[in-house]
């Protein structure tokens, strides 16, 4: 049996609900967008139902602790097709077993979830580390990212608490939405970039006059902090993989 869903978290939770409602086992869960019907498989399109989703979430809350709820949510944010399948199977396993079953690391779904969540948390941590703000003329600190996973919801609080006295925007160019902190709350925003706009880095025209100076000072610091005799390029790249270099002020020539 194949279930297709709309790739939302509520949709996924609704799918869990339907499994039990319809007493169906061995479900394959596929994102609607990617589904290609075949001749012999039966399929069902899951219509996202917030009420059903809430019931499942509430049920999960009773079964597993806060850390595991976060593991579940992080795995969802990975946006990886196999991860959705593991989430469904994990939820079914949890509901079918006694409390505490999430500690069975011998179970394939449990170990899979902890691995997906680990990757997502690592990406989240990298964003907290590698985001570089540029100050614009109107005083907003601006940064763009295109993370491997959808981590904006996970980093929002970190930046809100940290930069409480400055306005900032973090924009995910891959998923085409961003966060704007207006000194009180964080709002979700979308920006319509013009076709030619280079949305990776701000053009000098709209940058604060001091911005270039601090970039130069930071690059100089980065260079001075290096010890030539200990050069270790392999380790350097292991810590800062090349795909992140485009964010990093110190890595621009």
């Amino acid at each position, binding site marked *: 049996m194949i279930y297709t869903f709309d790739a939302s978290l509520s949709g996924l939770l609704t799918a869990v609900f339907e499994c039990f409602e319809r007493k169906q086992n061995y479900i394959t869960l596929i994102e609607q967008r990617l589904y290609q019907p075949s001749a012999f498989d039966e399929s069902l399109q899951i219509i996202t139902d917030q009420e059903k989703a809430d019931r499942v979430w509430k049920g999960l809350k009773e079964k597993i602790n806060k850390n595991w709820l976060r593991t579940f949510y992080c795995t969802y944010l990975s946006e990886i097709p196999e991860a959705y399948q593991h989430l469904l199977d994990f939820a079914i396993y949890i509901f079918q077993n006694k409390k505490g079953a999430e500690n069975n690391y*011998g179970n394939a779904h449990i170990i899979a979830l902890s691995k997906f969540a680990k990757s997502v948390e690592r990406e989240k941590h990298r964003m907290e580390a590698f985001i570089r703000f*540029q100050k614009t003329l109107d005083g907003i600190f601006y940064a763009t990212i295109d993370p491997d996973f959808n981590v904006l919801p996970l980093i929002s609080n970190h930046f809100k608490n940290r930069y409480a006295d400055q306005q900032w925007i973090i924009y995910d160019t891959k998923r085409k939405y961003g966060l704007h902190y207006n000194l009180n709350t964080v709002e979700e925003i979308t920006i319509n970039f013009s076709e030619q706009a280079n949305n990776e880095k701000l053009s000098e025209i709209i940058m604060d006059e001091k911005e270039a100076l601090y970039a130069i000072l930071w690059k100089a610091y980065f260079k001075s*902090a290096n010890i030539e*005799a*200990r050069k270790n390029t*392999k380790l350097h790249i292991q810590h800062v993989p090349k795909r992140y270099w485009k964010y990093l002020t110190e890595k621009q020539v």
Partner: protein
Amino acid sequence: MHNRILEKLNILADAAKYDVSCSSSGGNRKNTNKGLGDSHSSGICHTYTEDGRCVSLLKILLTNHCIFDCLFCVSRKSNDVQRAAFTVDEVVELTMNFYRRNYIEGLFLSSGIFKNADFTMERLLLVVKKLRLEHNFNGYIHLKTIPGASDELIKEAGLYADRMSINLEMPTEAGLKLLAPEKNHADVIKPLSFIQQNIAQFSADKKLIKHVPKFVPAGQSTQMVIGATPETDKEIMYTANAFYKNFALKRVYYSGYVPISNDTRMPVLGTQPPLLRENRLYQTDWLMRFYGFKVQEILNDANPNLDVDIDPKLSWAIRNMQHFPIDVNKADYAMILRIPGVGVGSAKKIVQARKFGKLRVDQLKKIGIAYNRAKHFIICADSPQQIKDYQGTQIKAFILAESDSKYLKTDSNQLILF
């Protein structure tokens, strides 16, 4: 004006880089005053230099003028280098603006000793007070304790800094005397223990009184230079162990000596820094702090130096084959932690998972243990029957044969006859 600050930054960051500590962990300062900054308890490395070291803090000296002449230090009085000094405002501006752009977690401020200890400490204190009180800065501040500064100044600094540190420099008193005759370990121990007593006092008060100010919430650390003087690994780690015990240090750092002087008492210029040795010392440090090993088990009179070709945990296991193989389905957590190839995370997962049934090889692999290494030391539900009992040296040869070292360019493998 901009060029001047750029020049100062180059000189004073360059002089500070031999201090290896760059951690920003353990801070718990919250942004409650709607100011700038909020500590992240695990710390954040914002970038890594090309030598692979983390850059978390803006690590600078206030000045590299110094009245001391310690041979191992670039800023020693007799060294012919450019000298510079930041003003208090310059440091504050740099810190604030770097932090706002998410370049750094905070400030690591050290200094050469100019005039005397108290004068220097006072200047450091001015910077941190200005950041905390005038600029509402809640980021991480790591401050060097200046040996010989008065108790009042040190205590006041502790109210604003997250971490304080003071370097032992050489692992033994004799080594220190050789290279820095004006210094001794007692000068380091006195402020370390003074701060330690205050940390203990403040946390005791906190249990009774609701609002006690923070005092060095991320604790203290120290650093030893490795390879400048001829100490054994045993001497180094026994010193580290004593300092962890006596002063509740959060970290001891081991800094492989990078030759900076052509004095005959030390390795000559151009000698490679002892990176592998440094790595083995850190591994030992981790075994002591997170794996329940006693330092005497790893280093003792029979083994005064760490193995170069294998890590200290494997080395211990091979010397103590009587404890192995360990049954992962029965042994207690402390023993599972001692299996080469099993880390803290995997050990915890194993202990949880085996409540649900006996663990098999494929499950152990998925849990994430380094199976090729661990297989010589464990039994699980479907372990292959082993007819032959291998010697420790043979196992070492097996493991070396299928791994290549990051450090050793030429293979040191030797065939074993029996």
